[in-house]
């Protein structure tokens, strides 16, 4: 299989049943993508597949053969990172990469989202520390 991850092309050899999260974290050592539940309930593992947010822990890598994947490592220079840091939109930080990937997907389709848009788009990304008010603020002010 081939995957383009953050602009680089990789041959991926995952066994049948390997998830995209496992391929990214274990085979490509891209551990910025976190797995918190492993069953698609929390959003921590969110990555972009051909621009769309996808739960990588329940996506089989064979199902995305040939796709273009963006992980948090590919968003290092995205202004959303600064917005999260500036707004204190993280505490323990374990859910944060997934939050940021979801937030980037939102603002790519809607650069100036309303509170309602943010609450709708981000409701699938759990944060147990409860950084939600600051996450909303970060996304509202991501353009600086």
């Amino acid at each position, binding site marked *: 299989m081939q995957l383009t991850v953050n602009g680089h092309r990789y041959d991926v050899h995952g066994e049948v049943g390997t998830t995209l999260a496992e391929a990214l974290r274990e085979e490509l050592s891209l551990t910025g993508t976190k797995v918190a539940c492993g069953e698609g309930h929390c959003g921590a593992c969110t990555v972009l597949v051909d621009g769309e947010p996808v739960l990588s822990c329940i996506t089989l890598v064979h199902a995305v053969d040939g796709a273009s994947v963006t992980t948090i490592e590919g968003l290092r220079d995205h202004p959303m990172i600064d917005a999260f840091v500036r707004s204190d939109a993280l505490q323990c*930080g374990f859910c944060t990469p997934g939050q940021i990937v979801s937030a980037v997907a939102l603002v790519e389709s809607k650069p100036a989202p309303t509170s309602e848009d943010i609450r709708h788009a981000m409701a699938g990304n759990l944060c147990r520390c*409860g950084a939600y008010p600051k996450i909303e603020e970060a996304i509202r002010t991501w353009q600086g």
Partner: protein
Amino acid sequence: MARLIRTEKEVEGRYEEVWLVVEEDSLDQWPAGPREIVGRDAVRVDGRERATGQAVYTADLAKPGMLHTAVLRSPHPRARVTSIDLAPALALPGVHAAIGPGDIEQLTADCSFQGVAIAAVCADTLAQARAALRAIACEFEVLEPLLDPDEAVRRGSLLGEPRERSRGDYERGLAEADVVVEAEFRTQVVLHNSMETHQAVVEWTGEGVEVHISTQYIWGIRDAVAQGLGLPADKVRVVCRYMGGGFGSKNSPDDYTFIAAELARRTHRPVKCALTRREENTAAGNRNATIQRLTVGARSDGTLTALGGEFVNAVGWDGWSSGTEGPMQMLYACPNVKTTTYGAKLNLPPMKAFRAPGFVEGTFGLEALLDELATKLDLDPLELRRRNHTHEAPEGNEYSGKNLLECYRRAEPHWERRHDVRARSTATVKRGVGMASQIWYGGGGPPSYAWIRVGSDGRATVVTAMQDIGTGTRTAMAQIAAEELGIPLEHVTVTLGDSDRGPYATLSAGSSTTPSVGPAVRAAAADAREQIEEIAEQRGLKGASVADVVDVLEDAQILGKGARGPNPTGMQVLTFGVQVAEVAVDIETGEVWVERIAAVHDVGRVINPLGASSQIEGGIIQGIGHTLSEERLHDPATGRLLTTTLDAYKLPTIADVPEIVSELIDVPDSHLTNLGAKGLGEPPIIPTAAAIANAIRDATGADVRQLPISREEMLRALREAEARQ
């Protein structure tokens, strides 16, 4: 200079009398108010590392040759393993070792709660380990579980002796009362659900072990692992640079660390043992359920004459009976108080500390009871609390600092909104406002130490073997060091999370980290600053800043060390606060929305107002989950757990968050350390449930008596209120 003192030590509300070696705290406190760096907003020093995914958590560790573990856990609340065969597992590809009951103390054939570990397998991949686990042939004799806390108390199935606490004459106090209110409150089991599950990577190195673990207490892990493995403590290295939350559940090594250690010993490989989310929600601890049978007696002017309570903590199979009676004992100036607290031992998974254990539950009961009293007396609930405010601790000793009345004063504008809020009610959606007070510990204590080194580049590195569980302590420590040294915040690095690299620092629990380690960091920075100033003086540079003189150092470094001094003797060091909640209740469906929460807390000096506001918001949001949606359910017939996934267990999402307004009194506690700062991790979650319940009463007249306030509970309370009229 170190000296020995006899003092009381408090952790998570549990006191013990201990001998402690402490050092003097000779620095004067900074004056109140924001300084150059301390008291001003700082973005997290590690924010970028965490946000970009560069921060390496235990979950991200992949050591060369590392094996993965799967753990066989009892599916039954009470059962005996009658036969187990590990051989089929060992025969599968990739499997390196399997261990079962008796191989280590943590694996057992006597299953006393669902999730207790029976056997474990390690393999090259996690998938192989899981496949091997399924191949283990294990048979059980299923036994009748004990699940009912009251039944446990009747049968004497208790953890420890019942705790009786009494002052004054309770019976006489009741007799003197003009009004007596009695009510029974129940709170549910709540799960921590840290985003990073409990996990460890263990590797034997030479004569010892290296343990990478997601923990709140690297020194506690070091000592427990050393004891468990029969090693000298300095042969155990514990590392935790980043961790994905804990909330009280990650203070001990638990079964997974010892399973990894034993498998690593047998295979001569590094072994990772990570709980799955379902294991996390079964066997990694919980906030236990409680039953609270409470009585309050008061004169017609609202003066409390008697408070009494029977508290049953449904502890589970193991753990401890937390201070659910604490708020009743401590919050008000009532002369006659009598409480009895039972810890019921049940065939349910053991509790662990969870953000203000006992006080979250006890405050719900007490503060809801107080509002029922206020209604009976036709008194304003805020006024009732003011009338029963106490300036000295009910036990007679002084508070080191208390600004609860100031919290009440600053809450007034929020409380005043109730008339407008109520006026926005409709025929089917009723709105109201409620409040509740908060009391908790949070003073920290000795020992904790810090080292600091300053180089000729004018940059400083703080070294202390503490951990940052996500509360922002790394940032707070950097602010304190930068302030004392007079250098920019960006010139300070904090190195933490490694028991081999730095001195002892306390656990990240009990709202104790900043008040314990912060003064040590300041003392270390002051030690370095004084040395630098002396050097400057030799060059004739009096009053020069650190930056002006460090250039003469070349390869030399200035090394400072600091220690946390003692707590004030004979004083209670506590935190206080108040929250005001606004809710809407759909009286047809029983749905409850929290629309706004205002929080005013008194935790002494605030180091980082930005981080503090985040902690308050996080505490309140967890509190809202606790109040309205979260509940670990078990089948009452079999005891089997029903809510082990994040689908079934309802955590709050961003869509559930109301408007949150927070304010801190920010006055240093003049008796406490060189900082006057207390902890803020726990206080914000304490009054939230009671404030919401009281807002519901204000909106509807209904007395909710149990958490979570589900639609069923809300409709029951509404029906009861209707029947009363």
